[in-house]
């Protein structure tokens, strides 16, 4: 069975790209979220193997969403997707429970490497 993934980003462009990359690598995209609040809700609903999480989102940012998700499921595997120059926020996200991060603009191979690391 293909591993499942929940993609969280407020831009359709980015969701489509992450979805393309991961689907081509054999993942099943079971859900998408446009806000932090939606991400938390969908995570509880779908219990995906992997979550990709944007940092800047409306209605609860990505970092707070990671905090909520790991509170609900300490084993949650969340990969942060941050824009260039958000290093400080990445550290905060890791402290909040994210397992790793990739930097936008995405290089597909980098995304897959990070995914491998997160899923161990």
């Amino acid at each position, binding site marked *: *069975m293909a*591993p*499942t993934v929940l993609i969280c980003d*407020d*831009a*359709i*462009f*980015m969701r*489509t*790209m992450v979805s*393309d*990359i*991961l689907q*081509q*690598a*054999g*993942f099943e995209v*079971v*859900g*998408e979220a446009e806000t932090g609040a939606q991400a938390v809700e*969908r995570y509880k*609903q*779908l*219990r995906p*193997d*992997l979550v990709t999480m944007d940092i*800047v*989102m*409306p209605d609860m940012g990505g970092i707070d969403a990671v905090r909520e998700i790991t509170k609900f499921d300490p084993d949650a595997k969340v990969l942060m997707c941050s*824009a*260039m*120059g*958000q*290093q400080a926020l990445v550290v905060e996200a890791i402290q909040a429970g994210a397992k790793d991060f990739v930097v*936008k*603009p*995405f*290089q*597909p*191979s980098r995304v*897959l490497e990070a*995914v*491998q690391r997160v*899923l161990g």
Partner: protein
Amino acid sequence: MKLDPQRYAELFRTESREQLSAINRALLLLEEGGDPSEPVSVVFRAVHTIKGMSATMGYHAVAEFSHELESVLDRVRRGDQTLAPDLMDALFASADALETAVDDASEQAAQTPAMIAALQRLRDVAGGSATSEFPAMQMPEGGVFDESPAPRRAGHEPRTTLELVAAADEVTRPGARPTRHVRVDLGRLDALMNLIGELVITRGRLLQLTATSPDPALDEAMQMAARLVSDLQAEIMTMRMVPVWQVFDRFPRLVRDAARQQGKDVHFVVEGKEIELDRSLLDEIGEPIVHLLRNSIGHGIETPEVREAAGKPREGRLVLSAARDRAAVLIRVSDDGRGIDRDRVLERAHRLGLVDESVKELDDAALFKVIATPGFSTVETVSDLSGRGVGIDAVQAKARALGGSVELITMRGEGTTITVRLPVTLAIVRALLARSGVERYALPLTHVRETLEYDRDVVQFVKGKPVLVLRDEVLPLLDLRDVVRQRPADDTPGAHREIVVIERGARRSGLVVDELIGQQDIVVKQFDAARDALALFSGATILSDGAPALIMDVGSLFEGS
């Protein structure tokens, strides 16, 4: 790994445009005052999103510009930078520069002059990003789309069977999945619409052919198929409907800019944003609305000083509204400005020979006819806003091409209201089929009010001309035979004819036809030939028996009267 750059370029443009309209909305909110924190966050996030997308696409100019803009917004967000009016202006200018840059974005495109100017203004009022601790923008070395390492399988295996079952259970539980969306190219929806149009015609022919069949099973199957076609048609039409705000949303910004440029104070109100129209119609109607809004600001609403002197509030009111009216949608632009100067229009119309010298007064309809004449204008100076007043005839031409009509009401000193009546959808419209002689004509229901039998009681003669007396109202009466220049009908007693009450705006009129055949969904085929010669007709259609019929432009019947 293969990502289709074409598809992403398209996504970049659509999504950036959405973000830009969010930016403009938020900037307008900011300008109005109130708590700035939410609108500032909205602008920040939108610029951030555009930056991320453009960097991914390799559009350096856009990415770098958004980056600097974002750094200024970040300082505003943190409270390190106040939102002074000159910063607001710089932000508006930046949004404009970004909009053009997004449309022309490519990997090679350099920063446009507008972008450079906007950045200079931003630096002047807020200092450059170099002075802040906001990190510098870096672009990836390799492109995102030309990467070619071998795809790898994600090597994840569920750790325990229990986990797997639990996960499967969660995912397959009904209702657990969120609604999913697919973005479809508009061209495909158009193709689907054409196909369903052909299918509707074929259904009509089949129904007619099977109507005489003695086989009840065939009849039943045919009825079923007919119903399914109707459902399919309704479904596709719904899919093409979009709320008018998708186009209306950019107008507040446009009105603001136009008003400022003209030194007018304008309070702009939009009503009926959620009313839905066929996508292709909505795209077509955007430009005409812009003309109308600009006319109202440029020529309708007076300067604050003039308004005050006239005892009006300094701030003018401009309302854009959309409303459903049976099979039509009414789009209305209304201002409380000075109204159109009838005497000046009449004088000019006399001079140009558009109106006979004996005419001493113009009612709204006649006035509209004059100002909708191509090239007519009462404004002698050329303003960069509404041009030479070529607006109205363009609006009129567009509305008619779409099967609609335009109506004007103006009151000296009190304002002007222009209403554009449009069918809800373009390709398939519900029409009344009427026979005149051996010809059949389709009258779109957009302009049909009611029908009644021709009867000596309702038809009377005033000065030798027939009129229709309908519930105390006296309406002019036209004969379809005269309109299409057929021989008059035999006026023998017992010759049974019918009347269609047609309307345009507040005007109504009776149209006498030989026979009403019934209502039918007709598929509109536009024709290009000799527009002027065929101003009576807006298109043609194929009837269910395969014969062609012309579609009457009912609005045009009011022109001659």
